[in-house]
């Protein structure tokens, strides 16, 4: 894992920790897992990077329990071909 990615993931961890109640480490880990899974799925980080980060922080990449996560958005996620300039077919807004 490169230093930029690791720094970003540490910031993410810090913000999640600040957002949850004290002594709710399990919730922090579940939310981290959720975000890491998203980043891996979207090929922003590798699965190995996510596993390395999880290991360093003392948790594993198990599927998050929905009951303790933040309320899921009502927006349905769809895999669509977003093109913009025609460069890519990822689901995110890209380019023009």
């Amino acid at each position: 894992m490169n230093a930029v990615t690791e720094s970003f993931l540490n910031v993410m961890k810090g913000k999640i920790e600040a957002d949850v109640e004290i002594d709710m480490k399990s919730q922090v880990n579940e939310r981290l897992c959720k975000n890491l899974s998203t980043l891996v799925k979207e090929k922003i980080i590798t699965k190995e990077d996510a596993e390395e980060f999880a290991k360093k922080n003392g948790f594993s990449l198990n599927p998050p329990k929905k009951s303790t996560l933040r309320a899921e958005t009502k927006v349905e996620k769809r895999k669509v071909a977003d093109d913009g300039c025609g460069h890519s077919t990822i689901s995110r807004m890209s380019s023009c």
Partner: protein
Amino acid sequence: MSQSTVTLREKPFKLFERSCLEGCEKEGKEKQTPFVDFSVSMTNSCNANCLFCCNAGKKEFKFDVEAFKDFFDETRGTIPVNKVTFTGGEPTLRLKELHECLDHIRGKCGLITVNTNGSRLAEMNHPAIHRIALSRHHYSDKVNDEIFGLKIGNPLIGSELKFKIALVCNLIKNRIDSAAEAYKMLEFAANNGIEDMSFVGLMIFNDFCRANQIPLESLQFGNDVLCTRRLSYEVPGICHCSNHIYVANNGEIVHYYMRHNMKPDFDKGSRVVWENNKIG
């Protein structure tokens, strides 16, 4: 049809050069299939009054649904249509015609997007829509309304819409014009359940745009932002953009991209523009 152009109603359209995307060759064979994107202007009218508007002063026309449907079907007989963007003016001012078009193209292309200022967002619940590109140029309702010259408020509050909403924020001097302001905009997105947004540099349509344009390069973010890709159009100087992710204070991830179109008519070179009931 050659590999690099497609001809629609005797007009050649250049197909995209995919080599300009870093690493795109690694992302799967499906990307090699040629396709076109549509930008469909429903109207030149708008209920807002933005000072940077590229449509100001354009003559109104009556949108011909049948003409669009014919052209769409004709195009699909030649080449796949990937993305269709309905725009304007404010396309929701032609809601009946918009819904008729959506009924027709549903399931026939990869992505259907409607650009809107949000004043009629609650009425945008057609099942064909994948994404709303909601123009939102400030995190403050009051300032945003001033920019639009229209009372919009925050249409995201209580929204029960079933599709994704992406915010589009123009970078304007004394509005969202710095990384500090952009951070507040990203927080606004996160707090409203938005996963995608964009920061767009003003194109130079008039003196206001010239005087209030903010270079994207002037926005320097910290280590809570990760750049995920950078793109440049194959002709240097036309357009450049980049994708990023931001982790908000609530721990949620917001994807955003930054785009700087250097040429006002960029769209006409990159996609099929349907305006005034004909190819633009």
